[in-house]
């Protein structure tokens, strides 16, 4: 029975991937492709956050800093050097190394303490990065930001669509393998009962550090793609709204399910697109952040397991019914 439950989402995943691969042939409107690209980028970001919150039970309120580190590394490299593919790799690697270092240090300082400390320290450090980006005007141009040019392959909307789509698929597979590895299983154990995991001999600090660094690296990758997609950067990438996006996406999609994070990213980005279009007609929707805030609270209070939990409940009910039917059939 268990095997069936596992295989069904795999078929679904492949079907969705195939659909998305063929999508530009069906509909190549520029705005739709841009929206979908945005969804893919934020799906990677939301998955990275899910590794922390969903799989390990660590609350981070400063996840935007890794997104911002990746985005700024890429943007600054393109701004200072030529817009070539090797330079993109260079920016990507710098962002990833920096994120790994920062997440490691923050984790080392606070992960052996209660969950509040990690939440607060990440929030405070991310604000520090925001101030740094605003004050270091010579390099970042502060809140005004700067534009930069990117390699030609990224300029074409269709090819960039495919790049981000394949990135989502690769990150999904890598993170899935990570969560199903032995380290991932220990993380799941820690999130459920840390004392018991420790009593079994697992050093929970080390495993939490692994989760923290993994999440930081994946977030940095999504930040790099984000900078390339906009060809512009300003200090907004370090704002608390970016962290809130990740929170909303993972909560609405369902904690502890990478696919849920992708679905959540889709829902939030679609909603944002739609609401900001509505804002042109009804000015009240200019404050759509508050609508997302209320949605977040409602989901948290009413549907703590999100969309994925809802679907799982539904499919497992169906599965049980089928099993019952079969048993009844056997008896007859």
């Amino acid at each position, binding site marked *: 029975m268990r095997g069936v439950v596992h295989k069904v989402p795999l078929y679904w995943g492949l079907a969705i991937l195939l659909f998305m691969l063929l999508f530009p042939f069906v509909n190549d409107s520029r705005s739709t492709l841009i929206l979908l690209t945005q969804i893919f980028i934020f799906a990677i970001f939301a998955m990275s956050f899910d590794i922390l919150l969903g799989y390990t039970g660590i*609350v981070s309120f400063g996840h935007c800093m890794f997104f911002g580190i990746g985005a700024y590394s890429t943007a600054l490299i393109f701004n200072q050097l030529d817009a070539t593919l090797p330079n993109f790799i260079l920016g990507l690697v710098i962002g990833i190394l920096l994120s790994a270092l920062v997440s490691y240090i923050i984790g080392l300082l606070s992960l052996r303490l209660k969950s509040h*400390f990690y939440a607060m*320290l990440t929030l405070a*450090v991310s604000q520090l990065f925001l101030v740094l980006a605003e004050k270091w005007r010579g390099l970042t141009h502060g809140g005004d930001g700067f534009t930069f040019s990117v390699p030609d392959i990224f300029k074409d909307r269709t090819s960039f669509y495919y790049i981000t789509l394949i990135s989502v698929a690769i990150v999904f597979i890598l993170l899935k393998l990570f969560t199903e590895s032995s380290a991932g299983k220990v993380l799941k154990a820690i999130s459920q009962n840390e004392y018991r995991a420790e009593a079994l001999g697992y050093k929970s600090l080390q495993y939490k550090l692994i989760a923290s660094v993994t999440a930081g690296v994946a977030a940095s990758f999504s930040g790099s793609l984000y900078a390339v997609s906009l060809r512009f950067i300003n200090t907004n990438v370090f704002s608390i709204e970016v962290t809130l996006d990740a929170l909303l996406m993972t909560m609405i999609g369902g904690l502890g399910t990478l696919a849920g994070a992708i679905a959540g990213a889709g829902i939030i980005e679609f909603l944002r697109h739609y609401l900001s279009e509505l804002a042109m007609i009804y000015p009240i929707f200019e404050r759509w952040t508050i609508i997302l805030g209320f949605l977040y609270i409602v989901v948290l209070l009413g549907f703590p397991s999100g969309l994925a939990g809802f679907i799982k409940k539904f499919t497992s009910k169906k599965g049980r019914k089928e099993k019952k039917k079969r048993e009844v059939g056997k008896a007859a």
Partner: protein
Amino acid sequence: MEVFINLLVNGVSTGLLIFLLAAGLTLIFGLMSVLNFAHGGLFVWGAFSGAWIFKETNSFLLAIAGSIAIGMVLGWVLERFLIRPVYGNHVRQLLITLGGMLVLSESIKIFWGPNPIRVNLPAWLEGSYQFDGIIIIKYRVFVIVVGLLLYLALWLLLSRTQIGLMIRAGVLDKEMVQALGINVKGLFTFVFLLGAGLAALGGALLAPYSGVVFAEMGMQYAILAFIVVIIGGMGSLQGSALASLIVGVAGAFMAYYMPDLSLALNMLLLATVLLVKPTGLLGEKGSAV
């Protein structure tokens, strides 16, 4: 010398404003181990409603009273509808109070628009005192006096009254107090409202002090208050008072001599405390781990 005294006065008055925010935070945490991320939202609501009432009625005392009332009403709503359903679940408390913070600071923009608002000093607090060429701004002295009086009042409440005794006992051992037949949830609501009122008051006092209020201010000051609460020790009122003064005074001197490093200084203090003594300067409860 003049610079030194001025910076000291600035630092102490800022420190006491941070203390008003941190006091509620640390007591709420100590009693129910709820880390209230929405506390900064109450602070910014206090600042805006105080500024608005002052502009409409031209009475500073009415502005302060009104902002405290609004802060307490919002605090009650927060406690009743957001925090009560998630008692005992730390992760969900963290998540939901952040949602509360978002809604509170966004709703500021609905009521007062997205732009910063200018706030004037009340006429009777304008101007400055002069001693031997040293100029001290009146309003800062006022903030220091109010802050010290409130600290004294809080200290008396906690150490001399029946309800203070119950709060202190609750901070030490919640289950035991409950077993003795004391309504800890009611006590918690009281502390939460007290903290909300103090936060709103802090905001209302800050508005004329900084001259301008903006919606993102809540998060900035909340982060300062968190840093203070960790440095002082979570759940310790004296610790928060001490750490507020340290952060306020150090911040004032850094802002004068090395303005770009003033936020980094707080982070350095925070990192040191987390490394050396995670329970904070005066925290004894060993609740950090």
